[in-house]
């Protein structure tokens, strides 16, 4: 089993794909196994995070379990 990262908007370009399977674990460890440039983008101040469809107020405490979906949401586009 694995967890899944989902990249929205321009983060999809940065990640090279819309989603990616990763080994479960604390978010800091999951990000440490990614390309550092991508990890920096994902941790951007204006990027919101949703765990299994619910926005996360404190991403620091997230621990991914098997089957979890973690979405990275950059600012939405203008009108």
């Amino acid at each position, binding site marked *: 089993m694995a967890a899944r990262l*989902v990249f*929205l*908007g*321009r983060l999809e*370009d940065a990640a090279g794909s819309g989603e990616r399977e990763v080994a479960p674990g604390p978010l800091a460890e999951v990000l440490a196994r990614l390309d550092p440039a991508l990890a920096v983008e994902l941790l951007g101040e204006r990027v919101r995070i*949703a765990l*299994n*469809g*619910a*926005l996360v107020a404190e991403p620091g405490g997230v621990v991914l379990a098997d089957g979890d*979906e973690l*979405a990275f*949401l*950059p*600012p*939405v*586009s*203008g*009108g």
Partner: protein
Amino acid sequence: MRDVRLLETAFDPALEIERFTAGHPQSGGVVSFLGQVREGGGVEALELRHYAPLTLPGMRQLADSVLGRWALDGLLIVHRVGTMAPRDPIVLVAAAARHRRDAFAAADFAMDHLKSESWFWKREKTADGWRWIEPREEDRRDLARW
């Protein structure tokens, strides 16, 4: 009363407005906003992406907050996702009310919040290829009006 839809395929705004109006015969006025992909400016296509677990629930919450704020008989929000061509309808908001002031304010508010707070990511295709659309300062100003 509340009709909120996220559509993967094209819709007919005139038909939607007609049905919405016919469904609210007690309303004196219906205000609608229709947004379409602009023709010109070199844009060949527009793509809207969403995040299913958040986008439609967020639109429904917005509709509820509009209905709680103004005295409406009905509210319609229809939004496209996917790839669209110039002239294609993107979004339709319609508000039916006894008093037109409520209908105008509700549609205006709904559009400001849809544009700046809903979970949509947009990219445009021009001769230079695809380009993601960034947030706009104007949208934040629009939101600050309420």
